């Protein structure tokens, strides 16, 4: 099983994602944004960074990169697709995930570990976790303020496709624990099928205690399990 980690010009978390997936038993390979073939892969990650410099608007140019037509077909076929940070922004711009990511409420870049509460396990990213689990995962973004319209929100909520919310260390979802102004503290969502997921914090930065947290492992392991086509765990 091989994961494609897509590299746009300006992407910068690609090596970290490969390192983390490989350390968890995966087999990840870099795929250039001009490539147009994903047939050798069983899962796709759009990693963090500043694709095409984030010029115009985050993800606005990346959605037109040649690889994205393939990513769309891949997603429509029900295969696992994960967008982390900038990758989440690109999936929203491409219409593969609902909502948009605006500039942070305080108009400043935020790089620090945050607590997130698992809200749903109905996705390729959270299937191995438990609802109510509180994870510590680094956030690293300027445009992390997740916003969507009321009807889409209601649908996501009822379909259990809000995957994580920013919370305090006890798992309470409070205004004070919302770092960036996201609607109802949303940190991660999935599409209707649950096979496409976007997450704003970086699980690949939380796979080793030496670096401060290993709470991201359960998320990446969920993704690898999904890629392996295993049933619910």
């Amino acid at each position, binding site marked *: 099983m091989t994961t494609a980690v897509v590299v746009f010009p300006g992407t910068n978390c690609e090596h970290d994602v490969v390192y983390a997936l490989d350390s968890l038993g995966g087999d990840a390979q870099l795929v250039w944004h001009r490539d147009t073939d994903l047939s050798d892969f069983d899962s796709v990650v759009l990693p963090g960074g500043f694709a*095409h410099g984030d010029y115009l608007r985050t993800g606005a140019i990346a959605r037109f990169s040649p690889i994205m037509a393939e990513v769309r077909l891949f997603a429509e076929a029900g295969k696992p697709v994960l967008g982390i940070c900038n990758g989440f922004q690109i999936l929203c711009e491409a219409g593969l995930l609902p909502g948009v990511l605006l500039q942070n409420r305080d108009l400043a870049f935020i790089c620090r570990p945050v607590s997130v509460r698992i809200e749903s396990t109905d996705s390729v990213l959270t299937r191995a976790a438990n609802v109510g689990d509180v994870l510590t995962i680094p956030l690293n973004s300027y445009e992390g303020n997740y916003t969507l319209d009321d009807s889409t929100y209601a649908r996501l909520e009822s379909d259990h496709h809000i995957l994580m919310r920013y919370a305090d260390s006890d798992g309470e979802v409070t205004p004070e624990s919302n770092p960036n102004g996201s609607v109802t503290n949303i940190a991660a969502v999935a599409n209707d099928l649950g096979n496409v997921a976007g997450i704003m914090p970086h699980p*690949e930065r939380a796979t080793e205690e030496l*670096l401060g947290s290993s709470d991201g492992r359960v998320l990446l392991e969920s993704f690898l399990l999904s890629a392996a086509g295993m049933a619910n765990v």
Partner: protein
Amino acid sequence: MSEIAPLHRTLGMTDREFETVCEILDRPPSNAELAMYSVMWSEHCSYKSSRAHLGRFPSDAPWVVVGPGENAGVVDLGDGWLAALRIESHNHPSFVEPYQGAATGVGGILRDVFTMGARPIALWDQIRFGPLDDPRNRYLFAGVVAGIAGYGNAVGVPTVGGEVAFDECYAGNPLVNVMCLGILRKEQLVLGTAGQPGTISILLGSATGRDGIGGASVLASASFEEDSGAKRPSVQVGDPFEEKKLIEACLELYERGLAVGVQDLGAAGLSCATSEPAARASVGMDVDLDRVHVREDGMTPAELLMSESQERMMAFVLPANVDEVLAIAAKWEVDASIVGEVKQGGTLTVRHNGAVIAEIPAASLTEDAPLYHRPSGEPFWLEDLWTNTLEYLQPPDIGASLLQMLDAPSLGDPSWIYEQYDHMLFLNTVVGPGNDGSLLRIKGTSKGLAVSTDGNGRHCHLDPRRGGARLVYESALNVALTGARPLAVVDNLNFGNPEKSEVMWQLIETIEGISEACEALEVPVIGGNVSLYNETDGNDIYPTPVVGLLGLADPIPERPARLDQATAGMRVLMFGPKHSRNLAGSAFEKVVKGHVGGRPNAADSTMARAVIDLAIDLASEGLAPAMHDVSDGGFALTLAEMCIASGVGATVGFTSWIGLFAEDPHRFIGAIPEESLARVIELADHHGVPVSEAGSFGGSALVFDNGGPEATSISLVDATAAWRDAIPGRMA
């Protein structure tokens, strides 16, 4: 300006320097030639005022692969790994335009490092401003931090540490220094050489435009007066996206062994990127300006040669490899043009519109640059400053003083700054910002690289030699507290106007102090930068050298010490010599008393080595979960920072209140678990380092108790609130 000055003066050259150019060429220079000399002979590029003294630095050691004079210093880490380190300043551009000034400083230092064949893995920023109660200083501070974040985050290199200070002396002249560390495999090392005749010069990266014309000469090498805003066109504009692509393209060239040499285009632009590599290889070069890819039509040859447009590199490539290099550039969407060819002899020939517009000895731009032995002399006010000490008839309110210091922006929580920087990318940051030194792992090896950067303008103002030496010892101790052994030093010498004898004296004394300490620790200086003319309206900044020290931990400690790992029950142990009664230059006197005077104590090289060796042993054996070097603010502030970070109080005794605030060198606090006490004391005895048990961690207050009326207690909640709010409370 009402009169029209001669061109060379407008370009920042003296009449005498102009005459020298005429003598070298045996004729008056063309405008293009004059432009090249003016930027290459600027203070910023030629170090003409400081070069005579920089040779004092010890720069040899068996592990030095590349010493001073190249784009970055390089040391051997063993097992085929090398590290490249470089520090630079972007002081003047950041004052004129803080966001772009700071951003392009980051871009420039990155190029210095990846020019050597290294992948840049981390950045550190050392920034200094006037007090935050002035809105202009808040604007500069916020702009600089945003610029560092905007460029560093987007280019994809983590900023893992640094330092910040606020003082009136920087109000008219902020300091923005930046340091970059890269790693590479030995076989990928590339130097800034043009290679043999026949080698092709390929210009990679952004198109050349009219931005940053004369940045090195007109802006970086002159003092500020009231009309500094008029210099804004001399500031460059950065594009981190172009730089990111350029990094990846260049690293691919190195991996495939396609570059004979590489030189970045920073200060002095094309003039530098052609003449320096040619001079290093004792060759000449033909350059055709018509082939340079440009941003706008109608640029004059002088503008093309002086432009400091960012994100450009010059690669020197064998003819057989040119197509492959162009293909790599195309893949990464990096523009490339073949602009020249290396020639025998030493002549740099530049053509424009088919005509030769410059024909000069390449080496004359570098090797014939002016060298000034400017007069130096001890400042007339120094003796008065040394005797200007405060008399303390009764002790201060210790708790109130400590709270006041915690609330000082220079001493308070810096997370407002570093949380705007990506400090985690690449998954190497084992000990990150907010600690004494940074510790980065090299994945796939047992090695860790530790880095500390330190500056202290007040100490250096009071005694530049002692102050300079103490910076080296402090950095070395910080690195040792992560378990690493000091390997190499880079320095950034930020000083005032060198045409004043006291400023030259400060510079020479500082160089002497840094050199003495480096010799005592057997740590070479592998590179540095000098920033002069840091004055506005005649007021010089404090002499502010910044030292960056790289250490190697092999193996990297399994559980490195951090500030935030003290827990209730651990003992508070104080390592190092007993404090003196000297508060000269201390944060206590500055913040609480508003006083800067007296003479700081000198370092003790024997004690320095012993304390460093002890710290390495404690860190390597994992005996102290939390350790913190005692520097700004003395014992009391150091302990308070550990308590705040760890969320636990402490109770300690003391004999003299001065000992709580004195800033004597070679001291650190350890949080030591009961079961490690015996081994820790044994090690301290072994190294000959005095150790005393000051008290223990626990409770929810900081208690300083000498059994007398000075005893005090402040709640951890109050201390934390004051410390956390020190910067954001003033920026809201």
